């Protein structure tokens, strides 16, 4: 187990190094200097600016500097917001994104498992078809369209919920719902198919013949055993929520990290793009590792070992 985790950590560091390197050189290859938007600067000021941002050194030295600062978890100053560092942006935006993401993950899991379970228990009845139509809709509609649709109907036409901004709990419902829609649909389908498989097993028959009532069978035997594929979906779920947050936060005007990222793309604020990319990558890689470890703890049939030669 420890050996496995160590190996995984090693690969994680390697992957991160690749990501940092690729982002660094891509951003340096990007057209235009960060200061090109402003008026013609006197050469002395230009030189001063470049010295301040370390741009007067050779490309390789800049790269080494960047690697060192990433290890120190310091992503440097933002190029467009004067006086604000990328770390400030992250520590400001991330808590908001985290709250939204957690709410969306909760919604996706709760609604997805519920829909899937209902569909499996009422297999080939109208409940099954309704649940699967909802799931197909969730998979087929891109999240930004879902978000705009929800906003248009619930907030603009019916005025039930606030249109945008991030103030009260009511403000969080629409964005969380829009963010959760696609993963929810995937979870519903996973739950349904894995429950259908479990229902056919002998131990469910045994439980029935022991005289357990159907609620108890469903809760204690069927759902519990059908959850494994859903747990293994947690990694993709987290990454879907994370990338989904870019557009959702922009649509609803939520001051999270996703919105900062999108703004920095439009502004070509390279140091923010780089810093946030590295931050998101660390977040994703760590959470996927945690999910894998959790998976092995829940399911005793899975041994964390080298998957070589499977």
């Amino acid at each position, binding site marked *: 187990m420890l050996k496995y985790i160590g190996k995984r950590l090693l*690969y*994680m560091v*390697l*992957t991160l190094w*690749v*990501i940092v390197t*690729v*982002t660094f050189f*891509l*951003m340096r*290859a*990007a*057209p235009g200097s960060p200061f090109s938007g402003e008026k013609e600067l006197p050469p002395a000021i230009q030189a001063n600016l470049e010295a301040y941002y370390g741009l007067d050194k050779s490309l390789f030295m800049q790269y080494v500097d960047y690697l060192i600062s990433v290890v120190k978890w310091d992503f440097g100053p933002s190029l467009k917001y004067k006086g604000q560092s990328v770390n400030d942006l992250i520590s400001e935006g991330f808590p908001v994104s985290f709250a939204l993401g957690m709410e969306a993950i909760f919604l996706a899991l709760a609604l997805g498992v519920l829909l899937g379970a209902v569909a499996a228990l009422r297999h080939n009845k109208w409940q099954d078809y309704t649940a699967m139509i909802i799931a*197909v*809709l969730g*998979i*087929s*509609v*891109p999240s*930004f*369209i879902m978000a*705009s*649709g929800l*906003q*248009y109907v619930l907030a*603009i036409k019916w005025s039930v919920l606030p249109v945008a901004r991030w103030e009260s709990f009511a403000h969080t419902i629409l964005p969380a719902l829009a963010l959760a829609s696609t993963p929810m649909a995937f979870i519903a389908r996973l739950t349904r198919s894995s429950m259908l498989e479990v229902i056919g097993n002998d131990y469910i028959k045994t439980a029935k013949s022991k005289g357990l009532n159907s609620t108890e069978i469903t809760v204690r035997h069927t759902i519990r055993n059908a959850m494994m594929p859903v747990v293994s979906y947690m990694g993709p779920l987290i*990454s879907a929520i*994370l*990338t989904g947050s*870019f*557009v959702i936060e*922009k*649509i609803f005007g939520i001051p999270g990290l996703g919105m900062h990222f*999108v703004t920095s*793309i*439009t502004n*070509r604020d390279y140091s923010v*793009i780089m810093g946030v*990319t590295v931050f*998101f*990558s660390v977040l*994703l*890689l760590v959470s*996927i590792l945690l999910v894998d470890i959790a998976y092995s703890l829940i399911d005793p049939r899975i041994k964390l070992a080298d998957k*070589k030669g499977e």
Partner: protein
Amino acid sequence: MQQQKIPKELFEQVGGNTTDSEKISRPSISFWKDVWMRFKKNKLAMTGVVLLVILAIMSLVGPHLTPYNYYENDLMSANQPPSGEHWFGTDELGRDVFTRIWNGAQISLFIGIAAALIDLAIGVIWGGLSGYIGGRTDEYMMRFADILWAIPYLLMVILLMVVFEPGLGTMIAAMTITGWINMARIVRGQVLQLKSQEYVMAAQTLGANTSRIMAKHLIPNTMGPILITMTLTVPNAIFTEAFLSYLGLGVPQPLASWGTMASDGVAALQYYPWRLFFPALFISLTIFAFNVIGDGLRDALDPRLRK
């Protein structure tokens, strides 16, 4: 006791007719015919096929059904609702949405299919070689793939789109740069299973070289999973195109892609909702069609579900 003699005519030969018993009562069907028969029974998947055929035909015919083209502005008739003149209304520059939708269909379908084909080519070669050669080579090739695999897909696509000039080619390249790994892994897994089969050994004994064994024996037998992966790559690419367009990293104007039309539609939603409705409808229909076809194929190819 009187013994009765049974006349010879009453005897009849039973069985022994070898020609009839060896006859095959049903026409023999190949694996793919069998798959197709099961696929046909899946109504949802067939709906997807019909939808796709209609979409493909309309993407070629649609732009010619109207007197308009996708790039010409007509500011006098901007933002009109759907009418007899403009079936799907017009956008903020007075361009006919119906025409643009079908031009957009060409672009979106092209992106999806091109991405799937490139993934296929790289993935099959990489995964096939890695699985077939095995040993140290396999180890290195797969470790390389693992590291690329761990890079968050959309983040990398966004980064590439920021740096390079926006356009169709860049978009497809950005999508495939890490997109092929999924295909490579699936092909490798299949090849690992298949390469120890007797027919591969027979081919090796007969002196077939690696490329022949790969092309004639291994790849054809992994066609099923490859096909499923491809049908699920296409909607993913269309989805990504829409997502990138929303971030302002889509194909440049005046090209009409569904993603750019939808993201313009989002901006105009409050006053001109039909401008979001039509691109949203067609993006969703296409993703739906590919998804149900992929599901249908998976069910049809699954031997456990065979009756």
